[in-house]
């Protein structure tokens, strides 16, 4: 009798999540088997056409390219964030708060704004190229974007704040006794982070890299704003199919492929963090 209200409440919450989170995903899987129709959005059917198109070459290539750029940026993000956090937790509490607010601001800021800021910084008329030109270092300054490098900078900027904030409590609250012991036993202090701290955090870092990979896989703005069309990722293709070409079934099929990749990576990340607990 007493537990009636929480039970109903629990059912409602579950229902809301199912309808607005799970159902759209399930519907997307269904649409991926529909037939494309340029006049309407799609025709109800059951066909493997979209998946055949996917495996025909072009999209497979895009997938490989996407996996590569995403993997590289995820690894850069986690290494940068780990190194930075080791130094940040040594700062005074006031400066730690400064960094946390800075990182939170970065995390909350729109991709659009971050991308735009880098676009200007890398542009010919207002940014680094102009500065280098004025200093006489670069004779013929040109815009540095769009390029693969610019896209990577954008992706790393996006991921860096999130990973740093996740790592912050873990690194700030870590047990330092092992590191102290290593120092007492004669390990040179500058080698301690590499030989002691890094191995302790290795599994966390691997799990984080996988999570970051999944997140960066779905970023849309950075490739479009800062990358060349030849750098464009699966996300851009999905959105182009859905909004530009009005070929929703193909877009949905691409998204399902991405969903499968994501699922595999999440399982892998789960496995890595399970192993840590044993």
């Amino acid at each position, binding site marked *: 009798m007493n537990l009636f209200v929480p039970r109903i409440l629990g059912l409602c919450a579950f229902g809301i999540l199912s309808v607005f*989170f799970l159902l759209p995903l399930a*519907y997307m899987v269904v649409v991926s088997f529909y037939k494309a129709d340029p006049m309407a959005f799609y025709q109800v059917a059951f066909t493997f056409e979209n998946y055949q198109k996917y495996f025909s070459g072009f999209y497979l290539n895009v997938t490989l390219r996407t996996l590569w750029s995403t993997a590289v940026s995820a690894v850069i993000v986690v290494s940068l964030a780990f190194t930075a956090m080791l130094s940040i937790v*040594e700062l005074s509490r006031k400066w730690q708060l400064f960094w946390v607010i800075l990182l939170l601001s970065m995390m*909350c800021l729109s991709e659009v704004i971050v991308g735009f800021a880098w676009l200007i910084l890398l542009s010919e008329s207002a940014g680094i190229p102009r500065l280098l030109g004025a200093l006489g270092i670069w004779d013929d300054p040109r815009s540095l974007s769009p390029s693969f490098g610019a896209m990577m900078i954008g992706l790393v900027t996006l991921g860096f704040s999130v990973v740093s904030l996740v790592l*912050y409590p873990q690194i700030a609250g870590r047990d330092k006794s092992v590191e102290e012991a290593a120092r007492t036993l004669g390990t040179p202090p500058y080698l301690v982070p590499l030989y002691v701290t890094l191995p302790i955090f290795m599994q966390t870092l691997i799990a984080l890299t996988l999570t970051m990979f*999944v997140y960066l896989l779905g970023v849309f703005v950075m490739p479009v704003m800062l990358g060349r069309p030849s750098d464009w990722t699966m996300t851009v293709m999905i*959105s182009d199919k859905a909004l530009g070409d009005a070929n929703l079934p193909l877009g949905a099929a691409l998204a399902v492929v991405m969903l499968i990749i994501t699922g595999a990576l999440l399982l892998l990340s789960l496995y890595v963090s399970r192993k840590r607990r044993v």
Partner: protein
Amino acid sequence: MKGRLFLCLLLIAIVLPFIVVAGVSIGASKTITFPPTEFSLRWYGVLFSESEWLKAIGISVLIAVGAAIISVSLALAINYVLWRLNTRFSRFTFALGLGPFMLPPIILALGASLFWAEVGWYGRIEATIISHGIFLVTLPLVVVARGFASLTDDVVEAATMMGASPWQLFTTIVLPLITPYLLTGFVLVAILSFNEYLVANMISGFIVETLPIKIFNNVRYGYSPVVASASMFFVTVTVTALILIARSTDLLALLGAPKDS
């Protein structure tokens, strides 16, 4: 020492792009140039007087507040049920709420876009509000869970022994203690929703044009320094909101750092 140098470089890399944008936004020139040769606030004037920009700001604020209300209520309900019952089902619901942050945003966006088109709500602002509220629920869910974890058993037990009903227990003990966590979750969702581009654009970007969508379209199809002033407006709102949270709660502890480091 080396660590300090690294942090300084990092700080420059994070802040520099925004300094340039700020510079562009207060320049008088009609094209995007930096450093500015003449200063003027005219682009901020345009941002806050032209009706299309004002409309975009209004839509964004409405979506942000609506999404935050949905998100925080849902997070509170899930956490409360988990705390009261702690059944397998309630743990599963909690885990389901973590889901949106584990999927690439484009998948959520496409799913939501197909779903709302089928429901027939394409172009309605409610669709964007609900989807934002659901997809961002993970953040308040985790933050509010910390609040419930901070409730000690003896307080609750004392209240129950004194004859408090579940409703009284909730309103007089639980709610006051977790209010800071609810507020933090609310502000975080509002900020993230305010800044979100991909989901909003996929659901009904042509009709419900939020500020990020407007900025993106402007950048893609030829842009003026208004975009820079709009960006600075974003930065200001976001940073101010976060500093307000930091003032009212112990932000470092909220994130899970040890109290006395």
